[in-house]
């Protein structure tokens, strides 16, 4: 039983990270119906930014907590500015073009960013400092769930709550929902759609960066390629949950996290991805719109 709980909590941690990244995919898809393949790279850039800032701050002799806060903030801001710029450079000019063009542009952006980080940072795995504090009172339970994992889960929950509030109750959230439902009509109702799209990219990139800092600090090393793997997994999570749906992204992330965790624990860690993608295939066959997705009847 204890083993089960351990795997369950491990899956929860993984799932949280997938969910944080999947949010960016799903929000962007909800608004402009684009799979932003460069999203995983944003996550990776967030992690690298945090690493660079943390290294500098460590040299300057800052204490641990302030390093964590400042490095995370820098990562979030820097990643958000990347998200904003990518949209303006690579997607906005193609907004009226067929959807395939924007998709290819996204893949191009992803390859470009990966290789640019590869050139700047080499392909070696770089050690990432453990930025997250250890809580003394969690010591007795450390074999089930570490402080870092608790922080990851709590941060994710907090981000979800904030995002739900933003979308449900604020004016920007209303504008986002309106834009997602009918962009022209939103324009005619006086909504500045360009700004709404920019904000969607900024928010999605910021949450991805949060995920990047958390996981890098938990695992302890990063290289230029982590964004690709995490991006594919998070994209799977978004599709599992129903792409375009924010609660769906969270649920999809969790389901994927648990699947991997249990598969690793009860079968073999070699089969982790097999189970994850088998689940994806099954969902796509039996419920192509995802767990929480609405079935989309094509509008004419």
């Amino acid at each position, binding site marked *: 039983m204890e083993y089960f709980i351990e795997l369950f909590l491990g899956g929860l941690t993984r799932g949280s990270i997938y969910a944080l990244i999947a949010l960016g995919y799903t929000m962007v898809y909800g608004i402009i119906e684009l799979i932003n393949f460069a999203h995983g790279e944003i996550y990776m850039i967030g992690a690298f930014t945090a690493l660079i800032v943390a290294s500098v701050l460590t040299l300057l002799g800052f204490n641990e907590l302030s390093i964590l806060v400042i490095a995370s903030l820098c990562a979030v801001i820097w990643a958000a500015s990347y998200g904003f710029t990518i949209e303006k450079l690579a997607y906005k000019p193609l907004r009226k073009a067929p959807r395939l063009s924007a998709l290819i542009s996204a893949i191009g952006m992803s390859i470009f960013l990966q290789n640019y980080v590869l050139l700047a940072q080499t392909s070696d795995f770089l050690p990432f400092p453990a930025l997250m504090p250890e809580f003394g009172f969690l010591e007795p339970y450390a074999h089930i769930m570490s402080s870092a994992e608790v922080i990851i889960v709590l941060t994710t929950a907090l981000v979800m709550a904030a995002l739900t509030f*933003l979308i449900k109750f*604020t*004016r*920007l959230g*209303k*504008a986002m*929902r*309106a834009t997602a*439902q*009918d962009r*022209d*009509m*939103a*324009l*005619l*109702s*006086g*909504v*500045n*759609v360009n700004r709404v799209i920019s*904000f969607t990219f900024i928010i999605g990139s910021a949450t991805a960066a949060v995920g990047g800092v958390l996981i890098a600090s938990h695992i302890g090393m990063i290289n230029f390629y982590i964004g690709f793997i995490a991006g594919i997994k998070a994209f799977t999570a978004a599709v599992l949950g129903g792409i375009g749906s924010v609660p769906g992204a969270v649920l999809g992330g969790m389901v994927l996290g648990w699947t991997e965790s249990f598969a690793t624990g009860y079968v073999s860690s070699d089969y982790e991805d097999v189970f994850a993608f088998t689940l994806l295939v099954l969902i796509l066959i039996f419920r192509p719109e995802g767990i929480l997705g609405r079935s989309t009847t094509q509008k004419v």
Partner: protein
Amino acid sequence: MEPILDVKSITMDFGGLRALDRLDLDVQKGEIVALIGPNGAGKTTFFNCITGLYSPTRGDILITPPGKKTERINGLKPNHVTERGLARTFQNIRLFQNMTVLENVMIGRHCRTRTGVAGAMLRLKSAREEEQTIVDHSRAILERIGLSQFVNDLSKNLPYGAQRRLEIARAMATDPFLLLLDEPAAGMNAQETRELDNLIKKICDEDGISILLIEHDMKLVMSLSDRIFVMDYGRKIAQGTPEEIKNDPEVIKAYLGEDPDA
């Protein structure tokens, strides 16, 4: 007196197809003007040009909002056109289906408010107060349009006639000086059309909003309009009072075809 909307000789080409051909039209303050014509005459294209969804190939669209200077609005983005005081509805209903009736109207107030994202997220006092004003104002509009019993319903669950009225309510929330209605009576029964007739008159007389409407229901057009413009094949073929239009041979020809005996 400057007309509040003055369209001068606009042409709209889609590749080789000329959808609008040197069309002139004007709306004076306080007027209800109808734009009629057979299907495919270019009426909706004309609305799309005015509201910024299309950018006309040639010609000028000038607006003179009350108390402001005349301005050329060709090529402005739709949200900027809306900010300048033009609002419209669509021929096929285009509500934000999965939002409540109140939210639909509140979206329309968006462009009349100043609170930024930061303010809204931090729940600053000014932002909360402004939000409350928007809610109050939106409720007041719904009250006027006769939709107050539906405030918290999802808009897709409303009866058809109510959905049509909600489109008008949302357009009115943007504080327009000119309201463009694209076939507001389409699909309505006789009772609903009568109510619409009264509603449009009320908006024009009491709120001082001028109206430009596209409509096929001739009874409604004749009852409402101060002036009528008739289009066919992208051109204006007649303009005048309802009486003049009724007896215009060009109009009869466009609608009924040539009389073989004539």
